[in-house]
Structures are given as C-alpha cells and as structure tokens.
C-alpha cells in the first residue's frame, strides 16, 4: 500500500467514525431534496388551485339590488348574505375577509340614473387570498357597471364607445410551469452546496484539527512526502464531497416523482443518465472544493477558526450562481471558465433535459481541474513550510 492510500484510508475511516462530521457532511444532501420537493409541491398546489377557486365574499343589503346579485351569482362566486348594523365590524372581527355593502337607496338612485357607490370592506394588512378576491370582485362590479352604462347610452341613441376611449387587455404568462422552472433553477445551487458541505468538516479535521490535537508534529516526522500526505487528505475530503453529491442526487431521484409536474404539463425526470452526467461534470469541482477548503483550513490555528473561515469560503463559490440568476447569464464558453458557475449552468441544462455541448463540458472540466491542481500545489507548499506547526 503506498503512503497516499495509507493517509487517505486513515482520514476516511477516522472521519466516518465522527457523528458530527457525518451529520454536517450529509445534512444538505439529505435535507436539500426534501426541502426542494416540499417547496415545489406547495407552489404548484397553490398555482393550480387559485385559477378555479371561486371569489368569496359577504354582502350586506343584498335585497336592495336583486339584479346585481343575480349577476354576481352567475359568476364563479361564493356569496354569503349577512345583516349587520356596522358592516366594518364583520371584517375587523375577522368573521369575514371581504364585505360588499349595498345601501338601502340603491334601487331609487338606480331608477333616477344617479351614481351608486358600493363599499368594499377589507383588511389590506392581511396576507391571504383576500387580495385576489378583492381584485376579482372589483372587476366583476366594474363590468356590471359598464354593461348598465352601455345600455343607457344605447337607449339615448349614443355610441357606447365614446365613454371608453381607451381599454386595456391583460395577459399573464406566469403559468404554473414558469413558476416551477424558477424553483428548478435553484437546484444547481443546492448541488454545488452539497459538494462543498460534504468536504467541510474533513478539510478542517485533517488540517487545523490535526494541528490543534497535536498529532500533526509526529505525523510530519514520518518518512512521507508532503505531497503524498496532503493529496491523501484532499482525496478523503473529495470522497466525502462525492458521497454528499451522490446522496443528494439519489434522494432527488426518489423525491421528484412526488412533485405533480404532469398537472402543469411538464415532464421532469431525474434519471440515471442525468445523475451520471451530473456526477461526471462535477468531478473536477469536487477536487476543486476539497483543495480550496484544505488550503483555507490550513491557515487556521484551531478548529473554531477554521470553521469561521470555511463558512465564508462555502458562500464564495455559491455567489456566482446567485449573480448568474440575477443577471440571467446564459451558457457560453467564457462562463465555462468559472469553476462552480460553469458546473451549475451545465447541471441546470441536464436537469431540464437540454443537450449539453461537448465543448462546454470539456472547457468547464478542464479549467476547473487546472484550478484544483493549482490549489493542491498551494496546499502541498503550505505543508512544506515549518510554520504549518504554528
């Protein structure tokens, strides 16, 4: 057995025995998919439910305007007729979310052709479906009013369009599928995070932890090349990163069927081909992450100090992903030069089932691998300095 393997096996077994390391390494991998699928199901349920839900409200004085009421009942509504001295209280008490008040002189004003004002009582500080109900009810009443106005103009022999010089039409393209895609776009972020979190505690334990426990000095007195030592440690960290990503993908594989994609006419399948492809394009990033975490943790004198540094490090590679989403960066060869960002974009394409260009994948993998090698070289160099003992 060569010394690289000896160091690797020791670090792997040593850390696999630590419950804290295991929990933290796989927390993102296990909770990520659950969280993701939960949000997805929730959002889709809402999006699907809203469109055919009836407009719900209460009416005070329904008897004063029978024609208006019959019009409203013909629409997709759910109306409860109530009596109240002070209609306001119906809303403040929380008994009703939305109340329409019709005055007793409605019929009289209607016949005389006067303006009738209907009051809509609601509480705008409440986050609920009231806002949607209010908007739709307002629309219905406006529509009813315009119909009456049009009829009156006709009766007087006028063209109704003179009172409506401008009209608007709305088209909301935010279909449930579009909402689902937005959430789906955040999935690569979690995958990259899983890779980094997988190696997080190993990177600390094998460097700053070893120094703090006083085992680094005897280790350095062994006839082992520093390169063998450091690469063995980085390899163990990489394996944990790989396992974390793998656990994430496998749980995703089993969790995705629970999302009702078919209801919105979408087909999302995380198949074995995709899992394998994501793994392959992630390999250089896994090494990159392990080497980066190892280099930074090597500067720390204690476990706690290393934890602080690495928390920042884990945020840094995920920043490009957030930026990319905000700036809507598309797949291009230049973007493929950036570690973590390139993988995230490739992962997004793979998840959506879009073809990935060979040149893109190759550029991403090569540049990230080169960066990983450079970082490993830095790590080896750090262990050649006697200052590593602190």
């Amino acid at each position, binding site marked *: *057995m060569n*010394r690289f393997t*000896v*160091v690797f096996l*020791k670090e792997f*077994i*040593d*850390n696999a*025995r*630590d419950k804290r390391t295991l929990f933290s390494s796989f927390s993102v991998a296990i909770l990520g998919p659950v969280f993701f699928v939960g949000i997805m199901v929730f959002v889709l349920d809402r999006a699907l439910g809203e469109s055919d839900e009836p407009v719900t409200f209460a009416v005070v004085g329904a008897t004063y305007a029978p024609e208006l009421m019959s019009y409203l009942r013909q629409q997709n509504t759910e109306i409860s007729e109530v009596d109240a001295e002070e209609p306001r209280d119906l809303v403040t008490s929380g008994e009703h979310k939305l109340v329409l008040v019709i005055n007793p002189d409605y019929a009289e004003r209607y016949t005389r052709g006067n303006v009738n004002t209907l009051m809509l009582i609601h509480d705008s500080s409440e986050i609920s479906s009231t806002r949607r109900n209010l908007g739709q009810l307002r629309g219905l009443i406006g529509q009813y009013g315009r119909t009456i106005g049009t009829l009156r103009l006709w009766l007087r022999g006028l063209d109704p369009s003179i009172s409506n010089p401008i009209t608007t039409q709305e088209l909301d393209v935010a279909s449930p599928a579009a909402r689902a895609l937005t959430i789906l776009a955040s999935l690569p972020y979690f995958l990259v995070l899983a890779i980094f979190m997988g190696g997080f505690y190993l990177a600390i334990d094998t460097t700053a932890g070893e120094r703090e*426990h*006083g*085992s*680094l*000095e*005897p*280790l*350095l*007195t*062994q*006839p*082992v*090349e520093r390169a063998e030592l450091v690469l063995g440690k980085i390899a163990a960290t990489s394996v944990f990163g790989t396992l974390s990503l793998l656990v994430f993908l496998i749980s995703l594989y089993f969790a995705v069927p629970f999302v009702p994609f078919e209801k919105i006419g979408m087909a999302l399948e995380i198949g074995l081909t995709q899992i394998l492809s994501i793994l392959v394009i992630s390999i250089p990033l896994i090494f990159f992450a392990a080497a980066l975490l190892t280099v930074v943790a090597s500067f720390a004198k204690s476990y706690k100090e290393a934890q602080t540094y690495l928390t920042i490090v884990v945020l840094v590679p995920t920043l490009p992903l957030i930026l990319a989403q905000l700036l809507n960066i598309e797949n291009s060869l230049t973007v493929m030069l950036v570690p973590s960002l390139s993988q995230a974009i490739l992962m997004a394409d793979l998840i959506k089932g879009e073809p990935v260009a060979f040149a893109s994948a190759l550029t991403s993998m090569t540049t990230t691998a080169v960066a990983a090698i450079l970082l490993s070289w830095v790590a080896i160099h750090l262990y050649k300095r*006697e200052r590593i*003992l602190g």
Partner: protein
Amino acid sequence: MIQIDNLEKSYGKVHAVRGVSFTAQDSRITALLGPNGAGKSTTLRILSTVAEPDVGKALVAGLDVTTHPMEVRRQLGVLPHNSGLYARLTGIENIRYFGRLQNLSKQELEPRIEALVEQLDMKDFCARRTAGFSQGQKIKVALARALIHDPQHVVLDEPTNGLDVMATRALRSIIRRLKEAGKCVLFSSHIMQEVDALCDDVIVIAHGQVKFDGTISQLRAHAGTEDLEEAFVQLADLREEREG
C-alpha cells in the same frame, strides 16, 4: 549517534537556540535538561526534521537532517510533547497508521505491533479508541507508535509529564531496555530526579546555550555539590534570572 553542531534558530525576534552543540552516543541515555523556554523543544524539532536551523547542523547516524530528511525520519523515533494520538482510532490503529507510513509490510508490521503491545503491557486497552485513555496509556501508545519501525535513535520530549509513579517507573524500565538494545536515546526534561534516575550523560541547556555537557558524576563535581538540583540551578543561571 546524534550530533548537534553549533545550532541556531530564531522565531522572529526570539533567539530560541544560540549555538547549541552536543553529541548523544549509541547505547547511552542522554538527557537534555533545561528550564521551560530554554530551547529544548526547538532543538528537538530541528532534530526531528520539522523545523530548519538558521545556522549549524544536526546529524542523525551521520545524515544531515536538512539535506536527508527522509532517511533521518526512518532512523528516528519521536515521542512528541503531548502524545498527539487520534482520538477516534484505537490504540492499535494509531500504531498501525505510523507503521504503514514507515512503509512496513503487513508481515513485518503485525508481529511488531504484537511485540510492542506485550512489551509495553497494553493488552487491556489497546483495542479501544484512545479518546478515554489515561495519560499513562496515551504515552504508551505514542511510544509504541514511535518505536514501530525499530529506530536506532529515540527522541522523547518530556515523556514523564503527567505520569503517576507506577507509570513513570514502567516508562523508565522501557527506556533502559532501549539502551540495552544499543539504541541512542535522547530525552528532554526539566526534572532533575528524572535525569538522575535514568541518564548516563547530561546536557544542561539554558537561554538557548549549552551550560554543561558530561556525565552525572561530572555534573556533581563540576558544581561542587552533591545536591543535583542545586547544581542544575547554578548551571542554568536560574538564580540570576530570578533576581535580575
């Protein structure tokens, strides 16, 4: 044989070692005696190839530690200041890890581990994880780890720190056996009685310099007193330091 020749080492403004020279012979136990901060640990760190001297040389079996660190590491067994064991590995696993790093084959390693477990009387606890070990048990495992490749030179940094009487006695007899086997044993201490009970040669080191180099009886004669502690205090200029 370990030869230290005019060693100097500074950490920033601290001149830790200022021209230390001495020799530790095979089949002898040599003590590096000095108060805290005298430069003992720095000297041992240079010797064990984890620090480089600014000036001077350190030779182990004639090999320069700065130019031939890998060969020196094979010749040297080091017991560090604190045992530095891996808490989640068992005693045996700790020893085996270093045996493998020393490139011992399985056929060499396993009988060697068995022999050390026997010699150091570790049967009762060596299969457990070291997390709950007593100080004495930890030192035994760390010593077995240092001796796994049967090195000709053994360097022990304050090995009896934190040991009770029985554990100290056991350790002494182990060190004596190493001497009988022809090893070159160098150990640092700041405890006079320790040195008196065990060592053949003494090097008194203080303020980064060698104050005395000779046998125990020469040390008594040199200081003109039977009281070794008194001799040590005189040689190390401790009094002066306290008064100044």
